[in-house]
């Protein structure tokens, strides 16, 4: 890593940014065996993550392994799914929670009403989510970014309210006694202990990551990048943009459905209130905060957003600073403040992909810039240079 002249800068995040860039440079030139070493390290790290000695620091207030499954693991899975839609294809989806709900309800409904096998219900949930993604996308994906945002938001609410008002799927009561995944005799038993669910979740996350990376590097991924950067140009170059946008929607929905199925298998009980609009907003925030379009960034963002509010509950010095008040009460306040601050200081996210970062600085990047954007005297050009 060479010094690149950012040391004099007052913004501490920029120095972190330089470090990130250095790491990425190394990664791009790393040999195959080096890369696999890193993958292996990451997997080993994930395997030992539930250990109690990590948990006592990470979540002193509640069971660490359970927290790792929900919210952390679930958020990561959802964020990876939403990243396909927002980060890769550049479509703004404010109702992603709908697919999470469809996956969850599929498992709960077909398992309790028809006694289907858990894995069958998960698979069917994924299918159902994909189909509803297409049904939602087909009429609306021709709309421009912001219209799509409000329509998806509306779709998320429609799904939640319909579930709430439909007695056939439990209405407001939700569905109780959702079965756990079946045991594998002699190997693993899915009951009260959270550890098996964690490893199941881990397997799902790894599979989804592999899937997502393969996609990104394929023709599909390149088509998405083209759409994201300039849809009209992509269309002119012969990319069937509508078809690829629909595909992004369906794939994102499938991952959301998978997350819902995993969630229902662990939670035993689901109700419409498990799927509020604010969850869609939170997952979107995770994607953008981490670095939209970059998988490690997105996962980091999801982790931070899931974990920080839990951690705030148990910070002793915060308790004293607040005069004995429970810091848990202030966690959403802090969360909101941190979002605003992060967007002002590092709008490209914690770990942006280089390509996306360049797009952002060119002012393209999917949804384009805000209007009335005229370079002022303090326009930030140094970041672009520092990145070089």
């Amino acid at each position, binding site marked *: 890593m060479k010094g690149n002249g950012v040391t004099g800068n007052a913004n501490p995040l920029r120095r972190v940014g330089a470090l990130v860039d250095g790491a990425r440079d190394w990664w791009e030139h790393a040999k195959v065996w080096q890369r696999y070493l890193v993958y292996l390290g990451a997997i080993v790290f994930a395997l030992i993550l539930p250990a109690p000695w990590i948990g006592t620091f990470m979540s002193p207030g509640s*069971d660490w392994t359970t927290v790792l499954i929900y919210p952390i693991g679930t958020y990561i899975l959802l964020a990876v799914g939403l990243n396909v839609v927002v980060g890769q294809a550049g479509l703004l989806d404010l109702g992603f929670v709908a697919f999470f709900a469809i996956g969850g309800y599929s498992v709960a409904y077909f398992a309790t009403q028809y006694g289907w096998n858990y894995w069958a219900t998960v698979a069917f949930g994924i299918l159902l989510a994909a189909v509803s993604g297409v049904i939602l996308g087909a009429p609306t994906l021709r709309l421009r970014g912001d219209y799509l945002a409000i329509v998806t938001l509306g779709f998320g609410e429609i799904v939640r309210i319909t579930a709430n008002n439909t007695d056939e799927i439990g*209405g*407001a009561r939700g569905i109780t006694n959702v079965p756990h995944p079946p045991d594998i005799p*002699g190997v693993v038993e899915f009951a009260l202990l959270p550890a098996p669910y964690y490893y199941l979740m881990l397997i799902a996350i790894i599979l989804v990551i592999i899937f997502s990376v393969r996609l990104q590097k394929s023709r599909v991924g390149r088509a998405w990048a083209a759409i994201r950067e300039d849809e009209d140009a992509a269309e002119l170059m012969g990319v069937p943009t509508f078809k690829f946008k629909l595909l992004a929607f369906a794939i994102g929905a499938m991952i959301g459905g998978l997350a819902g199925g995993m969630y229902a298998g662990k939670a035993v009980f689901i109700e419409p209130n498990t799927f509020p609009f604010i969850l869609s907003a939170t997952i979107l925030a995770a994607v953008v905060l981490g670095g939209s379009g970059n998988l490690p960034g997105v996962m980091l963002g999801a982790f931070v957003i899931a974990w920080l509010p839990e951690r705030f509950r148990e910070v002793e010095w915060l308790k004293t600073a607040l005069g004995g008040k429970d810091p848990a009460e202030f966690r959403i306040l802090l969360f909101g403040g941190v979002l605003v601050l992060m967007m002002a200081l590092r709008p490209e996210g914690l770990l942006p992909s280089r390509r996306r970062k360049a797009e952002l600085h060119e002012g393209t990047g999917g949804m384009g810039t805000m209007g009335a954007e005229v370079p002022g005297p303090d326009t930030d050009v140094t970041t672009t240079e520092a990145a070089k």
Partner: protein
Amino acid sequence: MSGARLGRVLALAAASSLVLAACAGGGGGGGDAGGEVTSVKIGFMGDLTGENSAIVIPPRNGAKMAIDEYNAKSPKVKIELVPYDSQGKPDQATSLITKAVTQDKIVGLIGPAFSGESKAIGGQLEESKLPSVSPSATNPGLAQNGWTYWHRVVANDDDQGPGIAEFLVKAKAPKKAFVLSDDQEYSVGLADAVAKSFESAGVTVERDKFAKDASDYSSTVTKVAASKPDVIVFGGYYAQAGRLLKQLRDGGVTATFASGDGSLDQQLVTGAGAQAAEGAVLACPCNIPSADVTGPLKEFFDKYKASAGADPAIYATEGYDAATAFIKAVEAGNTTGEKINEYLKTISFEGVSKPIKFKANGEPENNAIFVYQVKGGVLKLLGPAEEAKLEG
């Protein structure tokens, strides 16, 4: 106990044997194995800081008071009350109960306060053989899961709903009733029970429902006004009840308004305005002593006021009784979840709120409903539903 724990450790080891981390959770097995047990932990779970904490703080105070009284007698086995703030959220409850079982090793749980979180963790309580007594979860479905470790000391909404309906039929002899609810589980369940009970009493029933966060009820008010009912029953919480009652009265609807325990709060009166709220009838499986009570309730009133610094509010007596059930079990020499649960099956004592005795499915034997009415802007206890007389 050691058998169960060993089983759990084995299951855990098996579960994690495919990976390096065989150490996830349940690390410190058998710390208190052998020797005299000198103290046990009882948990209290509910929304202690969230939106509905007003309903959960009083039973917490009641439970704390009972346990403090017990510990002050320097008993052989002391009880430590461990609070778990679930914020009423099922997810939070799930991770907290895992910690309570695997790390804190509580032997009993007072709560969870609400029905949603009770549903979410009931199965876990069963699997980990941990008895629970809820002071305030009133959902009827909870007793129908075949759980043997779950109990409550309040009547459920299936008792409460008919309680309200029968009381109104007796007091007002209505021909037509309008049953309203918002879209929350408690609200819908209570409204269903009320409607069914009205129909079996030969009263015509019409219904409407609205979203819990809606602020304009004009379409609902229009429906009610068009139907001209004799009585209106709303199943739901006080925030919505207050807004609804105000808009109904503004819309010229004058029929008697009744609701259940979720609306039994002074905020109903402030939300609706004293004028609109006057005469509203509220039923509750809870017994809230007011300053003018006599006997054991008076004693409770004074002690509660001294320890909590406030008048007893909703479910304070029930919290006290739930804790007393556990105290009696521990006094009888039971210090494990299984033993305490066996004892709870046979327990029978005169609680502050009502006589406490559990049915096999965990429901209380005594399912008394108490009726309250708003008079001069305050809620007044009229008495048990069978005896209460409506004024005005």
